[in-house]
């Protein structure tokens, strides 16, 4: 009995989510927008909770609230009295508490609430997988295809604008893509795992290479490999899949960072 034979949809969904998040997470780190990642993940969760309460498809709820948050995140706040981080903090608090309040009103049992709040990759349905494939694959390909203007818009906003790059468009393009990936992935895999994919594999990649292209590729490889290993370990030892994947994935940058320190000092 092997993992892929038993849970083929979960494995493919895990790889799809890991690759898309590993790819987009690099930009999240480089743009120093890690807080955006966790805020959007929590918002997606709140959307799922709202959807259950309103008896509408969970992905629709996640998508609606996440894209609404993206509109706030992508809105230019230059000259505002409050820094963007503060706004994100408020959104994060609202989403986290809102999700709990909404599920408390839903009448679900503890197991259902846990599955809703923390997600479980292993429970991925065929329908979830199809929706993920339909959205995540084109979004990821588009992000790769347009990596150049996205890089320039993030690297040097003003110079890019002077060169004719539509900075606001590409920024919105990226954040809408990020919102789509996070909202759909969070519904299937849970906010914690999605946030982990956004941060840990790209962080490990950045510790390994000083080249953007290599970092993008390594981010995808690291997230995919840690997903496969994490799922196999959880399957073999009967452990919950999400926390197992998260622990293994977070160990990646920790181990690579440690090795770097040892070799640099040595």
């Amino acid at each position, binding site marked *: 009995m092997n993992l892929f034979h038993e849970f083929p949809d979960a494995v493919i969904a895990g790889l799809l989510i890991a690759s898309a998040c590993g790819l987009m997470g690099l930009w999240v*780190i*480089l743009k*120093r927008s890690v807080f955006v990642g966790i805020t959007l993940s929590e918002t997606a969760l709140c959307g799922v909770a709202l959807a259950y309460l309103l008896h509408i498809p969970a992905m629709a709820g996640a998508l609606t609230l996440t894209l609404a948050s993206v509109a706030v995140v992508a809105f230019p706040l230059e*000259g505002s009295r409050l820094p963007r981080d503060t706004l994100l903090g408020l959104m994060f608090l609202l989403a986290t508490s809102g999700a709990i309040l909404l599920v408390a009103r839903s009448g679900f049992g503890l197991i259902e609430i846990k599955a809703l709040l923390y997600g479980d990759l292993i429970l991925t349905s065929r329908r979830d997988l199809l929706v993920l494939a339909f959205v995540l694959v084109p979004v990821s390909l588009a992000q790769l*295809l*347009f990596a*150049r*203007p996205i*890089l*320039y818009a*993030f*690297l*040097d906003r*003003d*110079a*890019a*604008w*002077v*060169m*004719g*790059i539509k900075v606001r468009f590409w920024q919105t393009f990226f954040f809408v893509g990020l919102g789509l990936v996070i909202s759909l992935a969070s519904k299937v895999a849970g906010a914690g795992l999605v946030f982990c994919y956004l941060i840990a594999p790209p962080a490990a990649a*950045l510790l390994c*290479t*000083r*080249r*953007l292209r*290599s*970092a993008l590729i390594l981010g995808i490889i690291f997230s995919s490999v840690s997903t496969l290993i994490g799922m196999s370990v959880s399957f073999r030892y009967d452990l919950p899949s999400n926390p197992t994947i998260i622990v293994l994935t977070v160990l990646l940058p920790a181990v690579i960072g440690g090795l770097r320190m040892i070799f640099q000092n040595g």
Partner: protein
Amino acid sequence: MNLAIRCEDLHVQLGGQEILRGIWLDIPRGCFLPIVGPNGAGKTTLLKAILGLVPITRGRIVTTEAVFRPAYVPQQKTIDPIFPVSLRQIVEMGLYPRLGWWKQPSLMDRRTVDRVLEKLGLIEHQNKTFGELSGGMKQKTLVARAFVMGAEVLLLDEPTSELDEPTETEILRILQELVKQEGRTVVLVHHGLHQAAALADCLCWIEHGLAALVNAKDLLAKKTPPMAFR
């Protein structure tokens, strides 16, 4: 006079405060023009207004070119050193107006980049990431990017701030050569009045949101800012 840029009654308001209050300015083609003035006078705002980076409340910018695409050189601290991009990749960003989002640099494009890197003494460091470069090399990288763009007009925002004196002198020499040898127009915001006056015959003095072209020698002789336009 052959003009590169003309500012007509330029007004800019930021955060409810009027920063530029009606600037009339003719910038001749092929000149090296430092913009000087006290802190908060509106030097950078004027530069950004010319570049289209801040909205103009009233007035207009007139240029003789059908498509006005100047090269902009920001301060080196603008680029986050966390980005895993090499010096060469940053310089190649200057090819974007020609290549767009998809085309790869041709052999000629790569040679252009090589030539510029050689000229600025950066070729040996081309594979280093931006974070690994010294302050002077970072600034030269951004100047190289502007060179690669091949723009007629270069606008620089305090390109020598936070640099040591020898590096500052070297960067200013490179810019002056660009004007003398290739006839390009270089406009730069500069913090030191006396150094700017030593570099150029003519300066743009800006104060209280108003500007005037002044003779550098006169300005140095009087040791006071010009009053005529106040």
